[in-house]
């Protein structure tokens, strides 16, 4: 399990999906807000709360292909599945690395960004907590969608259309400051579902 995590982190580092890139990506996406909506301070604040979620969702949507697809196509998934016979460990490692590479950077620069968008300390903390909890749930969802669509026609749109509705509850409760307990419940629910469904999907495509 720790081997797989190490390997995935190294791989993403080598394929220049490194920390620096993801951070830049998030900054750029959030930078679009003032361009698209103007720059009234009060409005920026409101928008920021929403757009961090959209940025997170986007980062997960565009990287959903990386979770299993790349390894499936070049044959590495065979090796991975052979070496990790307890498929649940395999999946959990994938959760961890995917979260680490594509969600953590957002959390790391969140304080800086919320500065730029005039949020105060308390607000930032609330957003941070929500994002932290919610991002895990979204990663769980992305994982099982990725596993289920392994053999489907390679279409990120299809995956987006499957995922976005599943992300909606996270976005609704996520942009509401106090509702982290609900997010926690949602994340836990998606964990339970995801681990079964992902295992099912991987076994199917192993054939």
């Amino acid at each position, binding site marked *: 399990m720790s081997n797989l995590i*190490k*390997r995935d982190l190294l*791989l993403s580092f*080598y394929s220049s999906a490194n920390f620096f890139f993801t951070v830049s990506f998030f900054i750029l996406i959030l930078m679009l807000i003032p361009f698209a909506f103007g720059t009234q301070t009060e409005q920026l604040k409101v928008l920021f709360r929403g757009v961090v979620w959209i940025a997170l969702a986007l980062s997960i949507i565009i990287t959903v292909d990386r979770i299993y697809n790349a390894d499936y196509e*070049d*044959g*590495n998934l*065979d090796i991975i599945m052979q070496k990790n016979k307890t498929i649940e460990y395999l999946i959990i490692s994938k959760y961890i690395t995917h979260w680490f590479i594509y969600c953590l950077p957002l959390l790391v620069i969140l304080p800086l960004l919320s500065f730029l968008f005039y949020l105060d300390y308390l607000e930032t903390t609330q957003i941070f907590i929500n994002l932290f909890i919610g991002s895990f749930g979204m990663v769980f969802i992305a994982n099982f969608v990725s596993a289920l669509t392994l053999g489907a026609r390679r279409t990120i749109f299809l995956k987006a259309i499957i995922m976005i509705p599943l992300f909606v509850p996270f976005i609704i409760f996520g942009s509401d400051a106090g509702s982290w307990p609900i997010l926690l419940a949602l994340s836990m629910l998606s964990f339970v579902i995801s681990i079964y469904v992902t295992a099912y999907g991987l076994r199917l495509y*192993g*054939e």
Partner: protein
Amino acid sequence: MNELKTENLSCKRGENIVLNNINFSIKSGETLVVKGRNGSGKTTLLRILSSFITSYEGKVLFNDVGISEDNLYNSKFNLIGQKNSLKENLSIKKNLELWDILFNEALDHTKLLEHNNLYHLFNKDVSSLSDGQKKCISLHRLNYNKYDLWFLDEPFVFLDEVNTNLLIEKINQFNENMGTVILTSNINLPKKFHKEINI
């Protein structure tokens, strides 16, 4: 002394029966060559033996235990299929690093690659290798130790004569160390191996 054996193995893919009553048995130190027409199920057979495909009829026994019952079976074989498990856009070096982690074993790649005359490509991207060179690197996975069984799906494809002979030598050596090899092949091999079946 290990023994791998199938009993009345049959398998369907989609609607078609691709394997029909396959029976063979192979012992340590032997090599089995699986021959057959395109689409006759050679690759399917290897994927059953390496327990990726689990929906088959009949039995696959390793030392008289069904392979799905044997928890350790997965750590006993090394399967080299047609997908080369290489990341096209990374250098050979980085690819091998990634494998080292996955296989949990640090090989001395320098020496091994020099043996195949590939060391000068060490820092090149896989995407800039020729087909034969890619195949050689893919077969490099055979250097990871500790396996009793090798399953090789058309390993000689793309290899030139010299590399073919190197591989045959390697297989012979593995056999001498009591390893078991099952390989599929469409072409006539320059050497006769112990056993051959036609499916």
